[in-house]
């Protein structure tokens, strides 16, 4: 039996050996991608990146090959993927989401690394400062315009006094946004109720325990909540019917009434342009400041609104048409 296992492992060995050598001979550039987990926003960023970079490369008559890996949410797997990609000696690495970026940062100090869907790179130590990264990492931040979004809530529900923010306490990015929401609420004279949770199964309970005087809900850009977007809407429309504003458009499309947002696909494209700068134009990544989304998108979701019996004020509907 042990012999059979040894043979199996040897076969796997040689298979991957053949694959890796075959791959690296055919392409001009290779980029390794590490995505933390499957969900709409991260997937959109991934797609935007690949499509834009491919387009840019083709315009220059070059070819680009991607090693695109998703880690199913497991941090140790991020490290393993990082190890594999680094040893494949790729020209550049893309990390989608903070844990993926950290895993790569721990494995290589030489290969240039671009991150996206990281809210505050400086806060988590990926760069020395957002203006001056200094190390081998830079990228695009998905920090959503929290301030504008809270203001939007006040515009949607003018008589609002108290709003709740629902988020995963285990995600640093969410904590950062909650802090920003607190500041915005103070400025706008709103009371903020923090509802932290740790598991998708907590969503039902959190909703049923919401105070009756909650006028609106804010859900920041949060990996766990994003995965549960449809569940959130189903729970909301059957029970509380409270207007929700999400931090991110993809999630908002599934459970929110309106928002200003980051379009992750566009963010991915922006990251691709940074990658092109590093790969082809030879720019030094340690001097490239972290970029934020250049164009904020406004989105209104009349279907969700009607399902929870909420009327969007006319002027907001008009604004959507203008954008």
């Amino acid at each position, binding site marked *: 039996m042990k012999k059979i296992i040894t043979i199996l492992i040897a076969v796997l060995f040689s298979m*991957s050996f053949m694959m890796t050598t075959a791959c690296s001979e055919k392409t001009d550039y290779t980029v390794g991608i590490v995505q933390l987990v499957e969900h709409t926003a991260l997937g959109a960023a991934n797609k935007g990146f690949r499509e834009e970079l491919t387009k840019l490369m083709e315009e220059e008559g070059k070819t680009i090959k991607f090693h695109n890996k998703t880690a199913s949410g497991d941090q140790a797997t991020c490290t*393993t993927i990082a190890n594999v990609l680094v040893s494949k000696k790729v020209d550049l690495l893309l990390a989608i989401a903070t844990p993926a970026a950290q895993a790569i940062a721990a494995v290589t100090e030489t290969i240039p690394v671009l991150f996206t869907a990281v809210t505050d790179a400086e806060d988590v130590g990926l760069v020395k400062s957002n203006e001056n990264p200094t190390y081998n990492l830079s990228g695009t931040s998905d920090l959503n315009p929290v301030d504008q979004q809270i203001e939007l809530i006040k515009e949607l529900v003018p008589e609002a006094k108290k709003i709740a923010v629902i988020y995963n306490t285990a995600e640093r990015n969410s904590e950062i946004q909650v802090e920003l929401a607190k500041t915005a609420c103070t400025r706008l004279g709103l009371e903020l109720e923090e509802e932290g949770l740790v598991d998708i199964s907590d969503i039902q309970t959190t909703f049923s325990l919401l105070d009756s005087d909650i006028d609106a809900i804010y859900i920041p850009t949060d990996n766990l909540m994003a995965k549960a977007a449809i569940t959130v809407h189903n729970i909301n429309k059957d029970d509380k019917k409270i207007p929700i504003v999400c931090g991110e458009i993809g999630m908002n499309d599934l459970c929110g009434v309106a928002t200003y947002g980051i379009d992750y696909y566009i963010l991915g494209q922006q990251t691709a342009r940074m990658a092109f700068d590093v790969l082809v134009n030879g720019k030094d990544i340690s001097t490239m400041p972290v970029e934020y989304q250049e164009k904020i998108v406004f989105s209104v979701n009349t279907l969700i609104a009607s399902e929870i019996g909420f009327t969007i004020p006319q002027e907001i509907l008009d604004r959507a048409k203008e954008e």
Partner: protein
Amino acid sequence: MISFLQSILGGANQGLLWALLALGVFITYRILDFADLTAEGSFTLGGATAVTLIVAGVEPVLSTLIAFLIGTIAGLCTGVLHTKLKIPPILAGILTMIALYSVNNRVMEGAYKGISRINTVITYFENLMGNSKMLANTMIGLLVVGIVIALIYWFFGTEKGSAIRATGNNEKMCRALGINTDNTKILTLMISNGLIALSGAMVAQQQGYADISMGIGAIVVGLASVIIGEAFMSQKFPFWLKLCFIALGSVIYRIIITIVISIDIFESSDMKLLTAVIVIIALALPKLKTAVIGNNSKKRKQQEAVLAEGEDGNAEN
């Protein structure tokens, strides 16, 4: 080819640091016969403690040792819950694990704490090995695992260690021999969770941060490593060699995952299914072995002869 070996080495390095977790799980699961689910909590606790201390300026080696000690306290909690409050083993572990979630949050003052660019135990070795991150990680992995195995081997050869082994095998007899089985169980849980916390501390330093979710799935990884290690070992191995194979199980597990990721056919999301398959194969191996080799084994015949000899020796009565 080099790049392939390099990624294997990277996987092995990861496996070495996680081997401490496997050894901790081995001690409670196999030696004490106790299914301890505290692991997910104590693994994160080790990482959180080490990182928080290092960021606060405490010397890394000391921080790591303190992480180990804090882990033993987690084990103490589970032990007391089980022995004094008579809570069933699995539940006791879960309760401690749940409580630790909040504790870890407090320790890190949030869900995460990074230590990029600060000296850790790993960077010491990197400086020694002249900037080869890979080799530095291998060196420290081998060193720590080696020391831990030596200590475990020594400990279970002592009177206390013997008492622990007996407790896992025949509790009733132990009490009749004056062994305080409550205390031996608690001590075992303390040692085990200390090791698991140590593993978390090392992994956190290797990856550059501690995160509240880093322990999720730790118990499965630990058990899978133990089972894989056991699939390759023989019951006749001396204890120290068995420990080495448990550590090897963890390394093999990581290497298999690395290979799978390298092969572009597989999706990383297949990982969970793969883990299950690996564990199933490893568990099925011994059964397949007996099925194939069967009742004609020379060993069985030898065993029966020895037993018969024992009986015949008293034929004159």
